[in-house]
Each structure stands twice: as C-alpha cells, then as structure tokens.
C-alpha cells in the first residue's frame, strides 16, 4: 500500500513529539522571588537529616528573603561524585560540604570562591583553634572553607564487660592492648575495625594514623609529604598486627566495631563522636556504654579532627553568594551549633556553644572531652592526593593485618605509591 504524504507528515510529527518528549525534563527551574541557596550535603542518615532540616527552617524564618534548598546525598563518596558531576555540567550548587583535600582539588580547578571577603576576623577567632586551621588552603593561604560538622575519635566500651574483668577505660595504648586481649575469646573480640581499601579509607585507617602520631610521627608532614615508613608508623602497624594475631582485633565491613559492641561481642569501638547516637542505638540499653578520650602513646595524646567544612562555588551570583554566607554564618553560630551538637553527635565548632548545651554536656561527657580535643586535634593536611594516599595505607593495613606482608614491607609499598601521587600533585 503506498504511503500518503499525510501519513508521512503525521509520522514525522509524531516522531518529533516523541523525541522532544524524550529530551524533555532535562532542565528544571523555579522562581519564588526569593534568593535561592542550594546546599549539597550528606547529612541524610539518622538524626542528622531532621537536625539540619530544623536548622534550615529556623534560618529561613529569620531570613524571609532566602530559600535554602538542601540537596541531600546518601554518603560522602556520592556527595563528591554529585558535586563533581554538577561542576562538570556547569550547574554546581551554591554551597556544598567538602573535605579539605576536595577543596584543594576544587580550588586548583578554579571553581571555588575564597571566603575572606565575607568572613570577619572575629568570626574566625570565635572558632576552636584546630577547626580554624583547617579552613585555609596552602596554595594561596586564603580562607576557602567554613566549618560545619566536626568530630574527633573517642573510645566507646562495654562497661559491664570491662568491669567483669576488673578493668576500667584504658589511659594508654599499652593498657588498651592488654584490656582488649583480656576481653577476647569465646566469640568476643576486643575491637573490630574496617580499614577500608584503595577506593576509600575507613575508620580503621584513621585509628592507624592516630596511633602513628601517638608513637611520635604523624603519617603526613604539614606539607602533605607521606611519612609511612617512619619508626612510629611501623610501631603502630605492628601494634595492630599483634592485636590481630592475638585474636583481640578482627576485620570486617559496615561498621564492625559498632556491630560487635552492640551485640555484646566487642569490648571497644574506636570511632568518631558522630557515632555516638548510632552506637547508643546499637547497644539499645542492653548494658551501659562508656565513652572515654583516646588513650595516649609514648609521644602523648593524639587525635584526628574529621568531618567536613562547607565551600562556596564560584558559579553562584553575587546575591546568592551573599545569601549563602548568611546561612554559613548562621550554621556556625553558638545557638545553631549547640542544637546541632546536641542532636547530631558532632562537636560544636565554637566554644561559645558549650554553655548553651550545658544539660546535654552534663549527661554526655564525651561532648566536653571531645570538644577539648578540638584545641589540639589536627586534620589531615589539605592536599589533593591525601585521600588516595590514605587508601594506600588502608591497603597496607589489609596486607599487614592478614599476614601477607610484614608491617614494614606493607608500609614501604604504600609509601612508594603515595610518594608518587604526592609528586604528581594530583
């Protein structure tokens, strides 16, 4: 049957409509007459999400002309992917959470705005010293980040289990090892950790870094140079390998320390203060859960400041940047930080928040000693290669703790890789 011109025209039109339909929906937009600030973040689990939503609503009530849209991502790796994808697409959010090495990468690509023009010296001085020093990038010594969710590592322990062995929270890492050994056996392990891997370090790797610092040499120099083969690093790795050999340390995935502690089959969990509410939920009142500062090493106390800062992307308009800064200032204010710390488990970034959360601190002493640690705790240096180098350390842990290589050999391999990455500057 011959096809009439009309049929052809209809077919072509239909195809065009379908094709247009297929392409539609790629863009979206809304205008409410307010200045919109989009905030890409990963505070999406547990109490974090409602706490941030509450603070955002409070801010919007105080600033009727600003609309803050939270763009919530499930975890930090996804957050970084989404931020990178949005930058690649030329449509980044106004602000986003970022670790300092991400910020270094973004700044190198000239997609960030320095915040020096917005932050007054008094705003910076109000922050804890450790928090303050983590906001600048060494490339040009400018202020690129503003603090939000900060944490340090503490020890969580099963008080009942420790009491049964006549032990209390250890004050030194040697005491910790002795206690962990004493608690282990019959399905119970002193401590369970996840070192992570090449694709991303996890809590176990952070513990190794802290141990190396407690033995005298942090694994990264201030200029980001990896120092994985120092005597302190080898001692730290040997310490963990010995615990593993003795059956006092086990490896696992998906927060194994929390799982073992919660199941009454783990003596300790060495984890961030941000784990407090999760650990409490895992324990579920089955036994009293103790918290204590990290034990000290031969070189004294050491801790690592973790958690992210917030960066502002360059693509935003001046009006959006101004509104975003108002939101950042609000988030770091004593009132907002007191609420955030009391509901999220993170530490307040300013000591001015502590008096406003006195009741919570009285009931949860970890907030006090955790916040005290912010005076001295150091974040990893802000260089683009740091996370990848931490992945190399996680691989070294996998190798040394499973007996594939000696601690020194595993660390030497990691050093070789990390040094090459640092040299390339990626």
């Amino acid at each position: 049957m011959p096809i009439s011109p009309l049929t052809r025209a209809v077919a072509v039109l239909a195809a065009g409509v379908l094709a247009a339909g297929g392409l539609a929906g790629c863009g979206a937009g809304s205008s409410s007459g307010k200045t919109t600030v989009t905030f890409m973040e990963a505070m999406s689990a547990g109490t974090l999400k409602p706490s941030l939503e509450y603070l955002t609503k409070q801010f919007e009530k105080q600033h009727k002309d600003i609309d803050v849209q939270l763009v919530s991502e499930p975890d930090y790796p996804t957050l970084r992917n989404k931020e990178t994808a949005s930058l690649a697409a030329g449509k980044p959010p106004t602000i986003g959470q970022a670790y300092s090495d991400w910020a270094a990468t973004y700044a190198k690509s000239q997609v960030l705005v320095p915040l020096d023009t917005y932050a007054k010296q008094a705003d910076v001085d109000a922050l804890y010293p450790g928090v303050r020093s983590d906001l600048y990038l060494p490339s040009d010594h400018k202020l690129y980040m503003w603090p939000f969710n900060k944490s340090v590592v503490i020890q969580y322990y099963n008080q009942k289990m420790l009491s049964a062995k006549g032990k209390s929270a250890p004050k030194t890492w040697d005491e910790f090892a002795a206690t962990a050994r004493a608690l282990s056996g019959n399905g119970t392990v002193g401590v369970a950790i996840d070192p992570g891997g090449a694709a991303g370090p996890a809590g176990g790797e952070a513990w190794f870094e802290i141990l190396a610092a407690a033995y005298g040499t942090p694994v990264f120099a201030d200029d980001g140079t990896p120092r994985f083969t120092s005597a302190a690093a080898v001692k730290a790795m040997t310490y963990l390998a010995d615990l593993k050999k003795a059956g006092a340390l086990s490896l696992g995935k998906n927060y194994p320390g929390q799982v073992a502690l919660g199941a009454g089959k783990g003596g300790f969990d060495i984890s961030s203060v941000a784990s407090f509410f999760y650990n409490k939920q895992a324990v579920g009142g089955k036994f009293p859960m103790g918290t204590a500062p990290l034990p000290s090493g031969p070189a004294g106390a050491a801790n690592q400041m973790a958690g992210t800062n917030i960066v502002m992307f360059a693509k935003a308009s001046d009006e959006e940047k101004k509104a975003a800064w108002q939101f950042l200032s609000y988030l770091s204010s004593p009132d907002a930080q007191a609420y955030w710390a009391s509901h999220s488990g993170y530490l307040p970034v300013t000591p001015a928040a502590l008096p406003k959360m006195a009741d919570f601190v009285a009931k949860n002493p970890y907030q006090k000693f955790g916040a005290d640690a912010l005076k001295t705790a150091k974040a990893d240096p802000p260089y683009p290669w740091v996370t990848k180098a931490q992945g190399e350390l996680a691989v070294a842990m996998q190798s040394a703790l499973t007996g594939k290589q000696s601690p020194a050999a595993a660390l030497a391999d990691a050093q070789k890789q990390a040094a090459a990455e640092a040299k390339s500057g990626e």
Partner: protein
Amino acid sequence: MATTQAEQRVGAREIAAPRRLARRTRNGPAAVAFTLPALVIFAVFTILPTAYTFVISLFDWNPLNVAQSRFIGAGNYTKLFAHATPSFGASALTSLYFTAGMVLGGTAISLAVAVLLQRGGALLGAVRVAVFVPHVTPLVATSIVWVWIFNPQFGLANAVLHAAGLSGVDWLDNSATAMPAVLAYSLWHEVGFTVVIFLGGLSVISGELGEAARVDGANRWQEFWYVTWPQLRPVTVFVVTISTISSLQAFTQFFLMTQGGPVHATTTLSFLLYQEAFVFFHTGYAAALAVVLFVVTALFTLLQFRTRRSSSR
C-alpha cells in the same frame, strides 16, 4: 502443467512488485521517522557518550574545569601499561581469574544441575524454580546479604566452620579467600540462568541416540560424555560466550563485597575503571580503560555471533 516463459516473467513481476513496495516501505522516510525516536534515544544515551568517551581518552581531562584539560594523544593508553598499582595488567589478570571461575565453574555446575533436573516431575520442577530464583534477586541486596554470610564474627560461613571444629576465615578480608568468596556468591546468583539454557538444550536433543548408546552397552557417564554433551555443543558455546561477557562486565558484587580489596585482590578491570573514574577522578585514564574494555567485550560479542552463525549452518 508447464508454464511458459511469459507466464514466469509475469509471475516474477507480480511477486517482485510487493517486495519492492515492502523494501521501499522499510527504507522510506516514514520508516526512518518511525525509528527516529528510538534512534535519538540510542544516540543520546549510547552512541554519543561512547564517542565522547573516546575523545576524553585522548586528554588529561579535568572534569571540574574542561578549559584546564590537555590533549595528550595516546598518553592515557601508554599509561595503561605503566600505571601504578594496581596496573592494567594486574587487573586484567584478576578479571581473567574471575571470568575463568565463572565460565568453567558456572558451565560445569549448570550443566550438571541441568542433567540432574531434566526429567521433570513436581518435585524437580520445584527444584528448578529454587535454582533459578537467585538469578532474579537484586545483585545489590543479595551482595549485602552475602557480606553478612562471610562476616568473620557473626557470619554463617564461619559458623559452619566452627561447627565442624575448624577455625574461622577472614573471607572478604584475606587476599587469598576474597575472590573465591565473591565467586561463590556470583555462581549462586548466575547459575540459575545457565541451568535454564541447558535445560532448554536438553529438551530438544534426540533421545534415540542415547537409547542406542545404552543398547550398545554405554554406561551413564559414557552416554553423557559421548552422546549427550556433543549434541549440546551450540548451547555450551552460547553459555560460555555469554558468561564470559557478563563476567568481564561484573561490577556490583565487587563494589559491595570487597571494594576491589583486600590488597587489590578483587580489582577487576570494571572495578578499576570505576575507581579511576569516580573515586580518583582520573577521567582521561578511565576513559582509555573504558575504550579498551569496550574493545575486549566487542571482540567476545563478535565471537558469539560467529559461533552462532557457524553452529546454525
């Protein structure tokens, strides 16, 4: 009744006319218009990104600021063979390890299970369903379940070992056991599909040949080895080819169960590609990896077409 040449010409013309019309309809503008939506979608989501990936593979690409990207020609391809741990070669070997396990193990297990289940009946029918069910479960959900099965402190795998008086194993945290553990999961998930394919093959082969062999005194094994399996050659080739392709592309279980570890023991080419592209953001290098993986997979696909064609002749 014989037909004259004229009648034949008229007849041929009568047949040829509708054929020409059909050809014109198939190749005409209307046909193009009807296929346009599918073509547009295919072009936007497959063809153009593939071409773009090839372009990116020639650059030191900065996804954050394309203006800072630098053309380096074949630089990323030469880096494939000189890159730091895990190297392209090491990951290719890991992929080969996984592929060999899946192809050899999967083919042998599914052929054995299919032979056992071919007779039918209500009970065997239920077993067939049970064997196939893992294949329809989501990879993400079941990978997570298997992470718990392999949990050294609380997992089922070590509970079985302990019950047998053996000491536990760090299944997913030891570089010697991680790949076998992922293989065990992957075989559990994939074998159901290949069993169904072999069952299909077994249902159409001749039973008479087997009967004749038995009359000639062949035992069960000889009947299977010399009569049944040779008849399943095209099906076996298909299973081997499709298993090879899907094993080379496997990613989810590595992402969820091992993250390529421990000590890179499960960093396959697919995982390396993900890691370089979306963890380290070495976009140009990852694009070069993707191109090579595409070529390897395309070669296996071509092989599949070839073997299909030759077995259907």
